[in-house]
Structures are given as structure tokens and as C-alpha cells.
């Protein structure tokens, strides 16, 4: 009797466990987890994805990580083969590692089967967010969020007669949106330490952050505008004379001068959040940040509306902006690849892309960008288009993290810690990068 009872219990337990497993598997197939950074566009995507949930019956879950920890957290997840994310909106620089290390699923066959054409997306975004090796028609992501580093400023201050007169007296020209990097510096220096409405204000808030990617993303905005290049010949890793060209040296010296003479005290480790804080608290006349934040800034009750305007990163020797933005990839370790592909298919539709833009996401779809009404659809829309025409990105190599940390180190040491010269910083950077590429077997 006792033995029979035990057997029955064991069989029951096994059956219940099997039932539980089946129901868990079923729940998993009806769920998708999308991973991204925690910022304004991510909230818009949550809203947008409700349409997908309604259409597909698949429940969307989201894992958003603050930017300073985003790369660390997500790359660790990918490197450990984790199944947290079915879909990942990963940074553009990760595409090389994602493709070569097998983290991302190659989407060519899927795109062909579903008639999703990369010609429907802005070429710069396809190149930057989707392809590996660069420019080859091997797609590992769908362009999801176009972005570049741009500028915004206190329009209300720029329009004040007393300030305009003082600027004219100081510089001999009208105060307006800077057309060159040097004009930007001049304006920043003009506002630096100035009293406005009884408060001391400063020129500009720029990226100087040490830990992740901040100072590189900020300084390259000036360096690209001067003509900085990573290689003399694309794909040859011949950096001597390109990375440390006279133009690159001059640009880096410029960025240091901007930091030393045109930024608020204590902004020595500042990135996106600090830039927004400085502007929203009325400390600075101008600030750099990613276009992704511009919808929120335009709607800000204190500094938005009529008080704010935007401009594209000023040219110097050439028009250029630092590329941000991301593509959406299917993680190869996902146990719901089909559902993830369904999401991408849904997201690629022109109507969904239009809604994405209207909700604060930066669509890369030509149906949105080429719409005649697009430039008037937001105060920063025209600047966004101008920026995306001339974007430059960091290395997208699998060893991008080593390359990035080396640049963070060299730039921060020169610009913020005030050690060495710009020439030494860039010469040292070539030595660092050469070592990385030698380790990679590419040199």
C-alpha cells in the first residue's frame, strides 16, 4: 500500500512538473523581452509596442539599463550567452562583436523572405547600425533609432537686446547660432561667468565623462569637424598621419580650450545627464547632447518652448556630427527567435515608423525622413536631417571596447587632467590602438 502510494505520488509529481514546464514554455513563446538603454525614447517604444502586443498577442517585456552601465550590462549578458534579451537595441559600435561572436542573428534571409528592403532606410543608418563588415550587405540589425550629437541653446538669452549688444561689442558680430566650431567657442566664452537675471551663467555643457564613452563622443564632434580620420585607407588600419594629423591635433586643442574656458566649474566628468541638468537648471547658454533628448527638451516647462532652439554640430573644415543611435537585433541565444523576428517585421512597416517618429523615436525609414512635412514636424527635425547627412562613427570592431577605453584614457588625461600635449595624446592613442589590432591579428 505504502509503495503504491509513493509511486502514485512520484508519478503525480513528474506529471505536474511536466505540466509546469509545458506551461512555462508556452508562456515564454508568448513573451518577448526587449533590452535597451533607459532613456526617453525607450519610454516611447513601450507605448508604441502596445500596438504589437494587440496585433500579435505576444506580451512585451522590457529591460532598460541606465546609459553609464548599459554597455557593461548588455555586453556581459551577450558574452555569457544569456537569455534575458530576445531583442536588443545595441549601440552601433557593438555590431562587429555581435556579428563575429555570434551574438546577433544574421537577418539577410529573413529580410528577403519578408520583403524588407534596406533601401527603405537612410543609407548612413544602414551602414552604421546594420552592416558587418562595414558596408558589406550582411545585415545584423534593422535601423531602429537614428541619432547624432547635436546642440541646443537658450534662444531667449540669444534674443535679448542687452546680451546681443554686449556680444556685438565684444566680438564685432551678431549673436546667433554658431556656424563654425570657433564661433561656438567664442559664444561659450562670451557667456562664461556672465550675470543674467542675477545668476552667474556659463558658456556650454559638453561631454567630459571618463568611465564609459562620454569624452570620446564629445571630443570627436570637434575632431570630425576638423577632418579627423581613423585610417588613411579604410580597412587598412594605417593610423599614422590620420589619427594624429595636424587637423586632429588642432581639434583636440580646441576641445580642451572649450572645456577650460567655456564650461561650468566641476563639469569634469559630465555626460548626457549632467548636460541636461546644466541646461535645465539655467546654468549654461548652450549644451551638447544626443538628438534623442531633444523632444523632451522642447517640451520642458522651464527651458523648452520659446526659450530653446537647436543647431547641428557646427562645421569647421567640413560638416560632421558624431553618430549615435542603434539598430535592433535578434539575440541568437533567445528561445523565441520567431517572435523576435515578428517584432522586427512589424517595426519595419512605414506606418509604424511614422508613429515611432511622432512619439519621440527617431525613425530611419525614408518614408518618414523624405516626407515633405518632416522638416517642419519638430523644431529640431531639419537639424536632425542635416546631422544624419554627415555622421561619423567610432570603430565598430569586435575589440571596440579596448579601442574606446584607450581613447577615453588619452583624451581625459589631456583635456581634463591637463597632462601632456594634444600631439602626445594622439600619438599615444595610435600606440594603444596598434597594440589592440596586433592582439586581434589585424596588424
Amino acid at each position, binding site marked *: 500500500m505504502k509503495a503504491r502510494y509513493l509511486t502514485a505520488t512520484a508519478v503525480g509529481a513528474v506529471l505536474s512538473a511536466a505540466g509546469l514546464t509545458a506551461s512555462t514554455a508556452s508562456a515564454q513563446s508568448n513573451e518577448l523581452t526587449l533590452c535597451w538603454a533607459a532613456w526617453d525614447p525607450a519610454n516611447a517604444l513601450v507605448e508604441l509596442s502596445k500596438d504589437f502586443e494587440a496585433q500579435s498577442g505576444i506580451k512585451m517585456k522590457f529591460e532598460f539599463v541606465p546609459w553609464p552601465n548599459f554597455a*557593461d550590462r548588455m*555586453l*556581459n549578458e*551577450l*558574452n555569457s550567452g544569456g537569455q534575458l534579451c530576445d531583442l536588443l537595441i545595441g549601440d552601433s559600435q557593438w555590431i562587429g*562583436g555581435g556579428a563575429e*561572436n*555570434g551574438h546577433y542573428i544574421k537577418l539577410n534571409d529573413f529580410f528577403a523572405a519578408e520583403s524588407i528592403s534596406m533601401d527603405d532606410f537612410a543609407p548612413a543608418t544602414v551602414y552604421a547600425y546594420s552592416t558587418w563588415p562595414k558596408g558589406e550587405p550582411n545585415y545584423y540589425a534593422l535601423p531602429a533609432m537614428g541619432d547624432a550629437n547635436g546642440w541646443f541653446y537658450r534662444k531667449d538669452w540669444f534674443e535679448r537686446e542687452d546680451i546681443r549688444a554686449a556680444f556685438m561689442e565684444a566680438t564685432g558680430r551678431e549673436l546667433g547660432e554658431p556656424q563654425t566650431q570657433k564661433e561656438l567657442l567664442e559664444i561659450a566664452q562670451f557667456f562664461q561667468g556672465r550675470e543674467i537675471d542675477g545668476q552667474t551663467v556659463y558658456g556650454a555643457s559638453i561631454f567630459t*565623462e*571618463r*568611465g564609459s564613452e562620454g569624452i570620446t563622443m564629445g571630443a570627436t564632434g570637434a575632431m570630425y569637424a576638423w577632418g579627423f580620420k581613423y585610417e588613411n585607407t579604410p580597412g587598412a588600419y594605417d593610423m599614422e598621419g590620420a589619427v594624429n594629423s595636424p587637423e586632429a591635433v588642432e581639434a583636440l586643442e580646441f576641445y580642451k580650450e572649450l572645456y577650460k574656458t567655456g564650461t*561650468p*566649474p*566641476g*563639469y*569634469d*566628468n559630465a555626460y548626457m545627464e549632467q548636460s541636461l541638468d546644466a541646461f535645465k537648471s539655467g546654468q549654461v547658454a548652450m549644451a551638447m547632447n544626443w538628438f534623442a533628448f531633444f523632444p523632451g527638451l522642447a517640451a520642458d516647462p522651464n527651458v523648452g518652448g520659446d526659450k530653446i532652439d537647436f543647431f547641428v554640430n557646427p562645421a569647421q573644415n567640413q560638416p560632421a556630427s558624431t553618430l549615435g543611435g542603434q539598430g535592433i537585433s535578434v539575440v541568437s541565444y533567445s528561445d523565441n527567435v520567431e517572435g523576435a523576428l515578428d517584432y522586427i517585421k512589424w517595426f519595419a512597416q512605414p506606418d509604424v515608423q511614422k508613429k515611432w517618429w511622432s512619439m519621440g523615436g527617431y525613425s530611419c525609414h525614408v518614408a518618414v525622413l523624405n516626407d515633405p512635412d518632416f522638416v517642419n514636424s519638430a523644431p529640431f527635425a531639419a537639424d536632425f536631417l542635416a546631422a544624419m547627412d554627415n555622421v561619423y562613427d567610432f570603430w565598430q570592431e*569586435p*575589440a571596440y*571596447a*579596448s579601442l574606446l*577605453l584607450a581613447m577615453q*584614457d588619452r583624451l*581625459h*588625461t*589631456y583635456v*581634463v*587632467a*591637463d*597632462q601632456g600635449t594634444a600631439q602626445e595624446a594622439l600619438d599615444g592613442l595610435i600606440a594603444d590602438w596598434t597594440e589592440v589590432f596586433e*592582439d586581434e591579428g589585424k596588424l
Partner: protein
Amino acid sequence: MTDTPIDRMARATPPHVARRVRGLSDRAIAWLFVAPTIFLLLAINIFPLIWTVRLSFTNFAANRPGREVEWVGLRNYQRILTDDGIWANMQTTAHFLIWTITLQVLIGFTLAWLINRKFRGNDLLTTLIVLPMMLSPAVVGNFWTFLYQPQIGLFNYVVELFTGVPASSFSMLGAGGLAKWSIIIVDTWMWTPFVMLICLAGLRSIPDYIYEAADVDRASKWRQFWTITVPMVLPFLMLAVLFRGIENFKMFDMVVLLTGGGPGNETLLASIDLKREAFEKWRTGYSSAYAIILFVTVFGLASIYVKALNKVKER
């Protein structure tokens, strides 16, 4: 015949268990009890250590599972030991270690000596002094980031009050030369109470009759301090130094929150650099060699120190 707990346990052991255990020697039973601990020790400490040593001779990268792993011999060690950047980080770590320990010992011992006297509010004051060490390093890091803020920070304001140097004219965390000291100040603020508590325990362990005897011998207070107080507190103090030394050698969280290793590399401690090599650059083989070098350094220094500590205790 005495009825010891062991006798009672032996009587309470069920006969079938007793039958199985009977026949095992004392040594075997001892091994039976120790085995789980040894297994855990091997699995959690020894095996990873051996594995790390093995990896340190390869070019293994944990984020490249498909890449062929090459045996590189001593190349990782040679690169680390000839890297000026790593030597600079070791110097930064040594600077941090020496100054934090020196300041904490001096201030901690002084506070303990003062607080050891009986006065009203002694207990309350002790509680207030030990508050910083009860906080999380993450909280302390964020908290001091605000205190050091040039425009709104209390620290800069106090400096301006006493020196006349404008508060917004200097940045403790961002200026070359100051950042090293800013992390020392925070660590000293947080951990001096710990040293104080250990010293206090040492001071309170000295019997009053020794001082009474010294008084009878008409020894001055100064002489009593150097010939009674200091030698008797020294073992406690050395223990505190050992704890703080080991803790600060692996200091990570607080400094990352305060400076991120910057400006430049000015506060880049060896532990922060190691983390970057291992989990940001994913140079697993290289960082294994780095970790082994740090381990040998700490282990070597700690062994020498513990021997010295034992000699002091034996005196």
C-alpha cells in the same frame, strides 16, 4: 561514571546508524566532517586560482568563445611588468594605501585615546563618530560627489571660508593633483572610526593597575604613554592596519563613484584597472596574469606583516 554530552549523544544514536558508523576510525570520522568544507574550499577558492594561473599563460578572451586559444608563455607577465601605465597605477594604489592608513591610524588612535577618558556623552559621541563606517560605499561615493561639487558643495565652501580661495575656482575631483587627495579624504572620513574602535578595544584592555604602579614609580604621563599605552595597543593597531591595508588594496566601488579613475588616470587604482581589463576589454588571459601579480603582492606583503604582528604579540 560521568555522564558527558558525548555519552548522551552516543546513547541517543539509533542502532542502525551506530552499526554503520562502527568500524570507522576517529581519523575517518574527522575527515567525514571536514570533507564538505574542504570540497567547498577547493571548488570556490583553489580551483579558480589554479584555473586563473593556467589562463594567465594564454591569450584567452572570455567574450570570444570561438577564437583559438594560444599558449603565450610568460608574455602576459612580461607585458604587465614592463607597462609604464600599470606601474603608474601601482604607484597610485601605494599612494592611496600609505596615506589612508597613516591618517586613519593617527586620527583613529587620537580619537580612541581621547574618547577612552570618562566624560558625559561619551557613548553618544562614540556612536556619532562610528556612523560613517556604517554607510554603504556607494552612498558615501555619491554623497561626497555632491560635497565636492565646486558650485554647491559644502567642502569647497568651507575651504573658501578658511582660505579665501573661491569655491568655484577649483574642483577636487576633476583637477590634476587634487583628485588623489580627494579620495584619501573620503576613505579617511569613512574608515577612521573603524581604526578608532579597534584602538579603543586595545586601550580598554590595559589594566588600570599598570598605570597605578607607574604612578607609584613617579613615571610621567608622557613616559606612561610611550612605555605602557603604545606597546600594549600596538598589536591591536597592527591588526587594524592589516585589515585596512587589505581592504584598501582592493578598493573599487567608492573611487569609481567619486572619480571613475580620473581625471585621466590620476586615481586609477590597480583594482579598477584590473576590472577594466577583465570585464570591459575582456582580455581574460592578460587580466589573469595581472590578478596573479596582485595576489602574489598582497599575499607576500600580508605574510611578512603577519609575522611581524606575531613577533609584537610575543613580546
